[in-house]
């Protein structure tokens, strides 16, 4: 179980005109992610979604509060212990092009976590990589290519493969499909749903698209300006959202058909 308790993140903003001020990006958020389930977090740009994701994925230390993974506070561990934890806790970023090393081939990129976090023989490593690559529906011929030779959809598959090759217990997807066009987005989302069925992990999807959130999960958190405003369980349609801000988000969605045009 991944539990977030009263977590806060503050940044100091330096400004020539106004001097220093403190900006609170995430303000006293608590939430619980149970094993083998799927969650989604929605909010506007600047609502603190990504900051929360980075703290939960043990990348960015929180200012206050604690994040417990199976009862242990991940920010009280030594850096070495935290590194070992990475095998069970993975983050997939939005900008997949930026998340891949341009000098490394696809194979080398996917190999990296296996090399560093497991004691596997070379053959076992290779077998794991071939397996995961097949699961994310990438062609084997792409393994020797560099990221800039791949399309956006293929790049995001590589990032997913890299996160999945250790079969982690928790995966946080931070706007992982936002840059993709609708057909590719659908394919990647369907792939993720299948992977979850297979690996039985806990996934948190961070997105600004309510449709994506509803498609991926039925337990949805709503964030605004660093606060957790709404938590909806059994969310099956727009009707499940009660909070005025959630309603506002839904109202600003473009219509599904020209017949509903106002």
């Amino acid at each position: 179980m991944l539990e977030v308790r009263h977590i806060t993140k503050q940044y100091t903003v330096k400004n020539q005109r106004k001097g220093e001020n403190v900006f609170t990006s995430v303000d006293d958020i608590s939430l619980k992610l149970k094993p083998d389930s799927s969650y989604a977090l929605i909010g506007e740009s600047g609502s603190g979604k990504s900051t929360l994701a980075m703290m939960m994925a043990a990348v960015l230390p929180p200012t206050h509060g604690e994040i417990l993974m199976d009862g242990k506070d991940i920010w009280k561990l030594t850096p070495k212990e935290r590194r070992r934890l990475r095998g069970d806790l993975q983050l997939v970023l939005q900008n997949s092009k930026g998340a891949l090393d341009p000098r490394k081939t696809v194979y080398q990129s996917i190999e990296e976590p296996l090399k560093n976090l497991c004691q596997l023989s070379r053959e076992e490593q290779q077998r794991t990589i071939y397996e995961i690559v097949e699961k994310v529906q990438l062609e084997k011929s792409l393994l020797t290519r560099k990221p800039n030779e791949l399309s956006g959809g293929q790049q995001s598959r590589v990032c997913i493969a890299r996160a999945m090759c250790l079969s982690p217990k928790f995966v946080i997807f931070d706007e992982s499909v936002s840059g993709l066009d609708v057909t590719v987005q659908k394919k990647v989302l369907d792939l993720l749903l299948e992977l979850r069925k297979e690996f039985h992990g806990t996934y948190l999807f961070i997105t600004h698209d309510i449709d994506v959130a509803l498609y991926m999960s039925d337990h949805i958190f709503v964030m605004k300006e660093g606060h957790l405003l709404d938590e909806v369980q059994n969310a099956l349609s727009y009707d499940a959202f009660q909070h005025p801000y959630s309603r506002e988000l839904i109202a600003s969605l473009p219509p599904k058909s020209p017949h509903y045009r106002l």
Partner: protein
Amino acid sequence: MKPLLEVNNLSISLKKQGIPIVEGVSFQLKKGQILGMIGESGSGKSMTCRGILGLLDTHRFSLSGTASFQGQNLFQLTPKEMQMLRGEKITMVMQNPMTAFDPVCKVGRQMLETLRSHRKLSKVSAMKSIKAELERLGLADTQRIMDSYPYELSGGMLQRIMIALALLLSPELIIADEATTALDVRTQGAILEEFSKIREAGIAMIIVTHNFGVLAKLADEVVVLKDGGIVERGDVFEIFDKPTQGYTKKLLQASNLRKEISNA
């Protein structure tokens, strides 16, 4: 009524490699009409728009076909005439507001430059009309915005500034190339509202997008592009209610995530 913009058999290809990018695209646009262009990445939507506006490097790309705007053939204009037409009669709103502005130049100065290169206006009166336009688009703190560098403003704000710029010279046609793709749902909603106001003002628009919701909200006519060619065209209601081509159906299905939840 004579069409405002008539594109006939437009083809664009890479000169050196001889690779076709856009092949035989034709469409018409009447005054005050909104044309939606939809397709996947790489289907040639943006290239078509750039070709029409004369924004393509002629050393790298070869263009054929015709594009006439108010009876003028756009491909026969000199670069200078084209430049005067752009911004004055036809304006463009780009996809990524963060990179469309000059990062080392304050927003106000960039807006002034655009306005004053087309109109003989004093700095003071140009400032006045810029401020009025920004206020109309719901940006209240105009002085602070004009004194800011692009990186100090949010994506939604910059996109509104770009729309304000596009509207300042009261053009006949606005081309919006994925203008809301980089924005979150709420900002997108606000920008789409602005676009429907533009429609009421009788300005024609070409909206390039891969989001069917944007078309459902705004478009009158829709063309569906695939691999550089038009696969289907028609009235927006026809495209949504009874698409004839498999590709259009596939796109519509992929964009409608919600439907499958209710089935599941």
